[in-house]
């Protein structure tokens, strides 16, 4: 029985097996080669891949469409990874292997020092690219992305001048002033005054609401204005004694222990719901957050949110665009990166998404105010952010800023805020985590 079927069908079966093997092999080869081509089709069309984390606003502001229109041979594809902690390791691996790199890659400001110091050789020098005018960019932003030997590997897209956003309606119910000027004056210069207002808020807090979304939000907002961060100028870690870190930690602890926080974790789905359900009255508000609040707060939040200057001026977050040297279309990618970061373009991104330009010459063109303005009760958000950006102290960024910051907020602050540990215990845990992160 077995041998007869074997006999009849041996040849065809073998053919099938050969065919299958061949098909498998060719499809594998095809999979590899299509990667290599980088999407350049036969008709001279070029696909440029732009790698970003979260919403950068370039696409939303219609910049890609505009560029494609004026450059008919170019198609732009944006590859978004929602969170930077997933995006950044991928960027590093791509740079190391040289395979699968995006033609244009976004870099977050907390990673920029590490990229400049360790990956400088793997990027094109955009400082010398055609059409780049150094003087249009903020000086400190330019320096952040420039290597010691003067190679500029990233052009600034947005910065994060940090204001405070607050729910006017909740403030009113709690018997607090709602005027943005008055509020800014009331807490100006001192985060303790902001915390004191929080205490007042909690006395008459509308049911189910808290003063702030999370203690980490306060930590980040205070830290944004720090002149002394986690590293000193020579690149030595000083996070233990840094004044900026201490101030931020203390403010966060007061909020956590004073039960003023809704205990949400930023960028979690529940946090998004917190916006929609009006569970908290204030949130630290870097420019890029304004677009986020508008998106998550939905129609009901419109006009209820308002924006005031924070006690101190600072910068939280921001992005650069770099062109990896391993890319297939470096020339075209460089042109695109340069064009995207021109003041006119960044002004358009601000108008749509409120991401604040890193090119001061764009500020004048920001007058036609951002789409988010009405959402924030017609607050003059352009002036507020421009004013903060102007007064932000220059700060030294370090090589592992991102990981140190994450250890403090996601381990230290969270232990105190959500697990009820003491500030000392929380700080000890954060320190231990940082030591582990740094491989000490």
């Amino acid at each position, binding site marked *: 029985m077995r*041998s007869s079927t*074997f*006999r*009849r069908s*041996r*040849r065809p079966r*073998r053919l099938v*097996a050969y065919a299958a*093997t061949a098909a*498998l092999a060719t499809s594998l080869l095809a999979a590899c080669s299509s990667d290599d081509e980088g999407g350049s089709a036969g008709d001279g069309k070029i696909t440029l891949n732009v790698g970003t984390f979260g919403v950068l606003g370039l696409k939303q502001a219609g910049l890609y469409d505009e560029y494609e229109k004026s450059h008919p041979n170019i198609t732009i594809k944006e590859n978004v990874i929602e*969170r930077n*902690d997933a995006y950044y*390791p991928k960027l*590093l*691996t791509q740079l*190391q*292997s040289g395979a699968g790199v995006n033609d244009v890659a976004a870099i977050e400001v907390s990673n920029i020092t*590490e990229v400049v110091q*360790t*990956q400088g050789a793997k990027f094109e020098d955009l400082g010398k690219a055609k059409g780049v005018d150094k003087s249009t960019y903020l000086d400190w932003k330019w320096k952040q992305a420039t290597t010691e030997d003067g190679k500029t590997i990233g052009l600034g897209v947005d910065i994060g001048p940090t204001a405070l956003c607050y729910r006017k309606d909740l403030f009113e119910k709690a018997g607090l002033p709602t005027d943005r000027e008055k509020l800014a004056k009331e807490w100006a210069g001192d985060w303790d005054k902001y915390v004191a207002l929080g205490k007042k808020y909690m006395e008459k807090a509308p049911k189910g609401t808290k003063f702030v979304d999370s203690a980490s939000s306060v930590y980040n907002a205070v830290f944004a204005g720090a002149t002394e961060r986690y590293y000193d100028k020579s690149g030595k870690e000083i996070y233990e004694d840094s004044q900026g870190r201490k101030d931020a930690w203390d403010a966060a602890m007061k909020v956590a222990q004073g039960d003023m926080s*809704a*205990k*949400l*974790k*930023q*960028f*979690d*789905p*529940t946090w998004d*719901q*917190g916006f929609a*359900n009006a*569970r908290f009255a204030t949130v630290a508000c870097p420019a890029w957050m304004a677009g986020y609040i508008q998106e998550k707060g939905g129609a009901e939040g419109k006009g209820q949110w308002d924006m005031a200057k924070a006690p101190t001026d600072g910068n939280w977050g921001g992005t650069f665009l770099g062109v990896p040297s391993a890319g297939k279309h470096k020339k075209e990618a460089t042109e695109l990166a340069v064009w995207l970061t021109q003041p006119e373009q960044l002004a358009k991104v601000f108008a749509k998404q409120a991401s604040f330009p890193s090119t001061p010459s764009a500020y004048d063109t920001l007058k036609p105010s951002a789409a988010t303005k009405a959402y924030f009760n017609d607050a003059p958000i352009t002036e507020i952010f421009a004013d903060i950006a102007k007064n932000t102290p220059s700060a030294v960024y370090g090589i592992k800023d991102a*990981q140190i910051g*994450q250890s403090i907020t*996601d*381990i230290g602050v*969270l*232990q105190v805020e*959500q*697990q009820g540990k003491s500030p000392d215990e929380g700080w000890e*845990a954060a320190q231990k*985590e940082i030591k*582990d*992160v740094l*491989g000490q």
Partner: protein
Amino acid sequence: MSETAEYAETAPPGKGDAAPAATGSKTSRTPSPWRSRLYRWDIKASPYVFVAPFFLFFGAFGLFPLLYTGWASLHRLELTNLDDSTWLGLDNYTNLLQSEYFWNALGNTFTIGVISTVPQLAIALGIAHLLNYKLRGSTLWRVAMLAPYATSVASASLVFTLLFAWDGGMVNWLIGSVGFDPVNWRESSWGSQFAVSSIVIWRWTGYNALIYLAAMQAVPHDLYESAALDGASRWQQFRHVTIPMLRPTILFTVVVSTIGATQLFGEPLLFGGTAGSKGGADHQFQTLGLYLYDQGWINGHLGRASAVAWLMLVILLLIAAVNMLIARRLRKDR
């Protein structure tokens, strides 16, 4: 065509030594010597060609990474600079064995593994037993069993994260309506482990149930009939007929589930939300998989991460050895 067939008959595969004699006696019917050589070569080589893809794939995606990881685990290798590595010897391993985060992750992996695997298999067995009865629309039920397994980890974890939300989650709402205080599921140590296990249980129970069901349907029916004649109740039939007959299958699912539990990664990562690789503020649900990811991809210490990977391999081998011993004992018992 017919030649090949006859040839095949005289020299079935696996008896390669018979081939030359066979061809020798049939030279008159073979048109050219190179063709016959080709046939001979074909007979000998074809099996290798057929199995080659597996070995090529295994070499490229299994063996090479394994060896490279082993090499990396003996070096200081950073994600930011893969071209530069310094020899460390066993430093990565000794550091790990001294790291409380490693032991914490190992412990969590074990506890989460136990509280997800044991109920999961028990429930799966029960469900399979129910499905084994004559039911209306049995195919529908079986497909329904597989639905959670077909759901992606990402969406399942997202839904569970919202269910277990500290503020406004459905689970807290439910236990609140019974009069209990809300639990901060993610930040309490047993709460978070329970929540992570529930995702695992939800996803894999149906899958295991179908495996059990398949095995149950292979149990000869007359065993049940004779048991019934002897007056055994359904429960007694289940205990004294089904379970013993299913023993090899149960062992298989235990092994597979244990391996899955040791490598548990996606569920806790996504349950943790932002900075999920830390496994909570106190690393309370950081599994070995998460610890590896945190070391390698968040902190950029690829050498250390490789050492974690190799330790995980050793642990899996130990588990496999223990399972083998148990299996042997069971076989002797019978």
